């Protein structure tokens, strides 16, 4: 048991702050970045935060971060998220198969991500955003205007599908009179979406690609690489906009899971999220305490016996 001065004061302030009702402390937003397979490390981050009792009031995500974020916002426990993600494969989110692959190769017909919508619809029982246990937002890009479209109302499943709809591989999703593709191109770490929902202090889990060393070996990983490079151009500013960052060391993991078509999370990737979140947990608590000091000070003045 660490009973150094720093540890005991942190513990003293944290026990009080984390137990406060939502309306008596700054709203905490958890932002889950894009990153394809790498982004499954978010599950490890969520696992550490929930086990330690870290309050999370709002969730926002892009692409794979949107898939994990929506399921978490609906109340799925980290263990369930882990099991679900490890069941994911190429066929979970696409109509990938021999025939569609031939069509893709010879007639340039794009795959469909309709199955991802069905998957999310089934897992969330086709809920609307406002029916989720925690406020949630996800981001897609309008392929006609290049705008980042932040979804925070209506049905969740089509919005999440749009958010992970990789351009060049999947057909754009037609939704609310827009043609939508993966939001990672314009909003890799959707801090803005969490702010829009009312988050005051934001912890972002970022699974950036170390593309300087990556060697894409297939169409998908090349496409994902381009998205990651585009995302990296705006990433620095987005990272600075967050109040605390957890960056699991998964930069060397290919976005599209090697040769598979899409998303093949592994226990190792999830563990990297858990490792890094554990390493930084107390720092995150300290950051939130310092940010919340006006709320703490208000209470300190009421202590009497």
């Amino acid at each position, binding site marked *: *048991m660490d*009973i*150094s*001065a*720093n540890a*005991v*004061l*942190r513990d*003293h*302030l944290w*026990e*009080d702050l984390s137990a406060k009702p939502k309306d008596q402390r700054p709203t905490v937003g958890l932002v889950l970045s894009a990153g394809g397979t790498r982004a499954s490390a978010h599950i490890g981050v969520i696992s*550490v935060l929930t*086990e*330690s*009792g870290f309050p999370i009031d709002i969730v926002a995500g892009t692409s794979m971060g949107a898939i994990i974020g929506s399921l978490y916002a609906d109340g799925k426990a980290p263990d369930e998220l882990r099991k679900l993600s490890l069941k994911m494969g190429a066929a979970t989110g696409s109509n990938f198969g021999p025939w569609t692959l031939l069509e893709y190769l010879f007639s340039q017909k794009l795959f469909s991500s309709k199955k991802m919508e069905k998957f999310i619809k089934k897992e969330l029982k086709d809920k609307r955003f406002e029916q989720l246990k925690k406020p949630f937002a996800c981001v897609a890009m309008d392929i006609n205007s290049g705008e980042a479209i932040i979804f925070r109302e209506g049905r969740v499943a089509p919005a999440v599908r749009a958010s992970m709809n990789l351009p060049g591989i999947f057909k754009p999703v037609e939704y609310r009179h827009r043609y939508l593709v993966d939001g990672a191109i314009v909003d890799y770490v959707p801090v803005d979406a969490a702010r829009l929902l009312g988050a005051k202090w934001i912890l972002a889990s970022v699974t950036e690609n170390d593309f300087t060393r990556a060697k894409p070996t297939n169409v998908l990983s090349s496409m994902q690489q381009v998205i990651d490079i585009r995302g990296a151009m705006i990433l620095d500013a987005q990272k600075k906009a967050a109040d605390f960052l957890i960056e699991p060391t998964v930069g060397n993991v290919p976005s599209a899971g090697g040769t598979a078509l899409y998303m093949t999370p592994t226990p190792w990737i999830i*563990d990297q999220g*858990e*490792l890094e*979140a*554990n*390493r930084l*947990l107390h720092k995150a608590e*300290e950051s939130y*305490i*310092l940010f919340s*000091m*006006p709320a*703490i*000070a208000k209470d*300190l*003045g*009421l*202590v*009497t*016996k």
Partner: protein
Amino acid sequence: MKRILLALVLLGPSSSLQASWNIFSSHKDPLAKEKELFQEGRYKEVIKNLNHGQLQYYHGKNLAQAYFYVGQSYEYTNHLGRALGFYELGAKLFPNDLRLAAALALLLHRSGLETNAEPLFKKILRAHPNNAEAHLGLAEIYANLGFLNRSVHHYQKTLQSVPENADIWRHYAEVLMKLRKFLEAENAAQKSLSLNPDPKTEMDIAFIQRYEGNWAKAISLLDSPSIDSQYGIKAERLKGLWLLEDKQVSKAVLTAKNVQKISPHDPIAYWILAQAALSRGQISKAKNELGLIRNSEKRSFVYKAAQALTKSLP
């Protein structure tokens, strides 16, 4: 401490690996002399006898045993790098030798190379699913890395085989506490205490009581003579903070003043006095106390918290 505990359990005379090894080595033993030297603690002579020139005369299990003796001898004479080299080479040449794997795993674990040690302990468990030493190794590794549920699983497996070790119960309780499973944590800590009274366990129980909101019990535990002798001023300032949490402001002030008698510039004592002043509406007094924390380490959390609180005050 945990790693030393594991070393004692893993390589001590009660080790099941040791026992199984002794069965193999009870026949005609070309390493009998080195074994004797090793058992007598004459490690330098073991190293001298089993130098690289000598090792070439051994084969199979004998060579594996020679690597083990040399590795252990280097380890006991504090040449950890050399010990590591012998274990690694031995484990590579004899991948099925679990004693070498265990020694290597343990040394890696002791050196904080947890992710390297983990697969070796797992390998031992594949051969011996109930091996308590390997379960304990994994329990400690997972606790250090923060994989708390996995750590709990392996502590439980260890305790099935080694139910009377107070330290293992205490470490198990600490992991449960981090998982905020306070009832289970208290049961484990009480079991540890019943096996061997230890102020560290009493401190754990005090924390558990306080996390559960039983401040009176927690604070009274901090007053126990054993905690006082082990922790001294650290327990006293903890008491001051917990008294504040229990809204016993006057007592908290007295405690802070006691701390200041021993350590006049203690930052936590200043904090307690500042918080007490705030509770009485004495904002400028609180600011003064917080200002005194500036003397402490500027990058510390206590200093940053004092600054943030000062800025938040009118």
